């Protein structure tokens, strides 16, 4: 049986740059006293890790809508998955961005 091959190449450099840009947006939006480079891309954003709460998530959603041109909604497949980490949020943004 043929095993399907995943031939997509992942541009790691682009991912890192986008993640850094997103970390900068989060730090600026929430006026966090940390450097964007301090945000661990794999650490949870919500509660543990960066320790954001629902008010922060609402603030970030407004920034995302202004910068990336699309709006988050609670109907999105799974908001907890989207906000699991900087990396997962960035993937969601890159898939849905219109700007």
């Amino acid at each position, binding site marked *: 049986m043929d095993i399907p091959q995943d031939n997509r190449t992942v541009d790691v450099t682009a991912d890192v740059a986008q993640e850094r840009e997103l970390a900068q947006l989060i730090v600026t939006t929430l006026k966090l006293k940390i450097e964007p480079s301090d945000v661990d891309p794999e650490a949870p954003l919500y*509660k543990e890790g960066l320790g954001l709460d629902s008010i922060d998530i609402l603030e970030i959603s407004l920034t995302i*809508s202004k910068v990336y041109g699309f709006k988050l909604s609670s109907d999105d497949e799974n908001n907890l998955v989207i906000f699991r980490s900087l990396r997962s949020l960035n993937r969601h943004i890159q898939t849905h961005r219109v700007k």
Partner: protein
Amino acid sequence: MQWTYEWLEKTVRSLVSRTLSRQTSSEASFPGEYQSDQSEIFPLLRHEGMESILAYRKGKPITVAQFLGEVSVVASTLPTRKYVLNLCSDRYRFTVVLAAALLRRQITLLPPNDTPELLKFLSAQYSDLYCLRDASDPVSPFIPSVPYPDDAVETRDFMEIPYFPVQQVAAIVFTSGSTGRPLPQVKTWGSIVRSARVAGIRLGVFSHPGATLLGTVPSQHMYGLESTVLLALQHGLTLYSGRLFYPKDIVTALSVVPKPRVLVSTPVHIRALLDDETELPPVDLAICATAPLSPHLAAAAESRLGAPLYEIYGCTEVGQMATRRTVKTEEWSCFDGISLRQDKKGTWAQIVHTGGDVLLNDVIELRDPGHFLLHGRTGDLVNIAGKRTSLAHLNYHLNSIEGVRDGIFVMPDESGQATVRLMAFVVAPALTQETIMDSLRKRIDPVFLPRPLCLVESLPRNATGKLSHDAVNHLLTEFAER
């Protein structure tokens, strides 16, 4: 004892037939008569008929008959325990469980958060507690958890509207005490129903018959319970089952639900909605609570929503107490049945129908017993996003962490900021910021987590061990200059 449909029906039928005549007279006398007869009963809901729409869930209307059918099935599946932690995030399901619990004479606990520490406290204090939620994972290892019975909807209709005695304890809500022990506030069915009815009259919901209430606040919050669930039940209105969070959620819900529509929200959500540029389907009425709204924001919201916006003032101990239409006046008007008085200790709210007297935690300028201005909270009180606690309570938890030698939470100057955040200064030579934050997270609600938490060598306490206001300001200035 196994609960069966027949048993329930029989009980409710007998209760209804025994008291229908009395109900007619007590119903007719409301509002205005607060010296209530303790044998009175109030119905679960006051919709026109069994085919009235009680809720919109996932795009579909749910009638009163369907709702009552689901309530009876859920009631028959509840474990035989005294207390239920109703964590259903779906507002319709929350309401079904609330009603089912009332039928089973179970008391709904409404804690201010679900931190592990608080859940452990609840399980210790209320040993006969279980949790019911619409998610599959258990909420705490200490509390038995039951999932919402998904098949409850497939049932024959339960055609009687249940009535419950006014003295029946419906819920216990909690406020945070200064020692870290949450303080229970008992809510009887009579008190929450009377409150919902008076509020509905004040808000003029009768001008919007059959309106749908769309809420951005969870049903478990006192304001959410009163203004999205009980307001709907007691005024024949429709509740929207989804909890709205993002501006897009609100816009989507408003565009699928027919008029009339009432938006029940908070300053945080309203500000986010105003920042969003999508065109909004008009609403008929907007209600806002949890923190004061500036007249400027209220005016912007009225113009954007195309509806009058009323703010509600209340607290967990009393519930909703007063309203104001912020664009017209800064003065709050108390509900019928609530009157304020002041003495050396502060401002007291008197609840006429229960004779209750509650000391309020806000600085109030009283114009007469029914009208007042609000000048913020008293020194120690913290209110962030509708969640209230005291600095004493937070300091207690901070200083209970092993390795913390001294620590203090500080509320920075909040002027001009949309959302206030607390800071903390901590002396803990052996600990890192992360470990302290991890410990705090287990103990306090995330909205109160310090942002940032600063480790310092010592706190500038004076000879008597106190931290003066100036010393705290000095710490803040030093931090800002770093």
